[in-house]
Structure formats: C-alpha cells, structure tokens
C-alpha cells in the first residue's frame, strides 16, 4: 500500500501515513474551514489500511493549533485506530503538547477519555 504524504500549509498539517512501518504522523496546524475536504483522503486511506494492518500501529499527533472543526475530524481519525484495537491489533496514540500549552493538553485529555485506544500524553519544551 502506497504511503500517504501531505505537505503542510499555513492552515493544514503535515501528514505522513506509512503502511509498511505502521507509523503515522500528523504535525503542525489544523485550521481548515473545509475540514472534510482535507481529512476525507486520510480517512479513505485509513479504511484501506485497516483491511490489512500491521500488528502495531502508532499515531503521533503534534499540533500547534487546532480549530473545533478539525477536532471532530481528528476524532474520526482516532476512531479508525479504535477499529484496529477492536480487531485485536495493537495501536497507540501519542499526543504531543508544548509545556506552556494547557489548552492542547486539555484537548488531549478529552480525547483520551472518549477514545478506546491507548493514549500517551507527551510534553515537550515550547520554543520561544
């Protein structure tokens, strides 16, 4: 399966989904207005991945900004990983947040509460 790589823009994140390694990365800003337009291809890719997944899948999410429309789209992405877990595979979400970004930490906690996938919160030092 071909990897999905999306270059970042001012309002959309860098996305790297690698079916060979099972390592997925979403990083940057996710502020698109037309959130379906951006996330649809990602969800379609994940649907296909789920049919023949790796034993272990890791999703690293490192966001600087997230708008509310994206928070729902990201939730849909997480649900795909939940499907993997339901299939008996191992999946994990790593949620990175800057040490001065309480809001991003909160969002992570909320996802952790509603998603049935092992969820690790990882703090990193904010850049000045």
């Amino acid at each position, binding site marked *: 399966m071909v990897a999905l790589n999306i270059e970042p823009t*001012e309002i959309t994140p860098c996305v790297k989904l690698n079916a060979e390694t099972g390592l997925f990365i979403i990083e940057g800003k996710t502020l698109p*207005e037309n959130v379906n337009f951006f996330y649809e291809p990602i969800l379609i890719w994940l649907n296909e991945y789920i049919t023949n997944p790796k034993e272990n899948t890791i999703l690293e999410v490192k966001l600087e900004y997230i708008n*509310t429309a994206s928070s*729902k789209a990201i939730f849909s992405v997480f649900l795909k990983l939940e499907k993997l877990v339901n299939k008996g595979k191992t999946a994990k979400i790593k949620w990175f947040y800057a040490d001065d970004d309480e*809001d991003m930490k909160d969002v992570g906690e*909320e996802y952790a509460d509603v998603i049935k996938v092992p969820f690790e919160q990882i703090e990193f030092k904010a850049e*000045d």
Partner: protein
Amino acid sequence: MNLTFIDFVFNFFTNIRSHNVNIIYEGEISHEIIKAFTSLAEKDLKARKEANPTKKKVFNIMVECLQNISKHADCLTQTQQKNGRGILLVSENDKQFIITTGNVVKVKSINKIEQEIDNVNSLTKEQLRVLFKQKLSTGRLSKKEGAGLGFIDMKRKSNNKLEYNFKSIDSNYSFFILNAFIDK
C-alpha cells in the same frame, strides 16, 4: 470630495485609535481571507510581549470567530454569495484582548444563538469539558461543518463569559455582535 464622507473616514480613524483596535476587517470571509488573516495575525502576535499561551488563545479564538461568520452569517440581499460576510475587530485595553465579530442573522435564529451562548456562559470549566467531549463524540459534522463546538471552545479558551448583542435591522434581520475577552 464630499465633506461628510471625509468626516466619516476621519472619525473612523479616530474611533479605531481611541478603542485600541489592532485589526479590523469588513467583508466576505472566504477561505483565502482566513488564510491571509492567520498568517498576518501570527506574525503580528509573535512580535508582541505577551505570554505565548495568551497569544495562542487570541489567535485560536480569532480563527474560530472568522469561521463562524463564514459558515453561519446570513445575507441581507438575495445574492448567491457563497461565504458569509461580517466584521472582525481585535482590540485591547490594559488587561485584556477583545475579539469582536459582527454579522447579519435572521431574526428567527436569535433564540437559538442566545440559548447556546447563555448555556455555555452558565457552565463551569468542568461542565464545559463534559459538553465538549459529548459533542466531540456524537454524530458527524453537520452540513455546514459546524461542529457545534465553537462557542464552547471560545468560552473555554478565553476563560471569560462571552458577551453578545442583537441590533435590529428590520423585521427579518438583526446584527449579531459577539465579544470574547482574553486576559493578558
């Protein structure tokens, strides 16, 4: 040139100055405008002395406000304009940043908007968290892609009550003004 108009322009300038308005926009709020705004505001904010989390909140709420207008503003005329039209102001005083939006809404929408904001304003931080999670995990995005999370997010990030007002335009339309306050 028409003197009344010149007075209007000058008054506009003095009013903006006296209210410490940093950013002002009136017009259609399209995808391109939001994109341009975000990069402009980000550069603008980076240069300021306020703490990073505060700047991030201002930026976040500004984007949310713009997208609110773009999706939900109603139109006075019957033109088939795709994007909503409205006003955005970012101003400040010694203690706070104030993000203000103004847009036209149908009179029949007022009740719903009032209820939603009043509800969000009445909830504690913990209650807002519960409501956010609930909205996050139920249903897909609505047709307009509004996740129903906008006001909740603004209230949570700003940590202050949202203020609003409706000014009547005619029997069908009102002008909806929303203020979010972010402590410096």
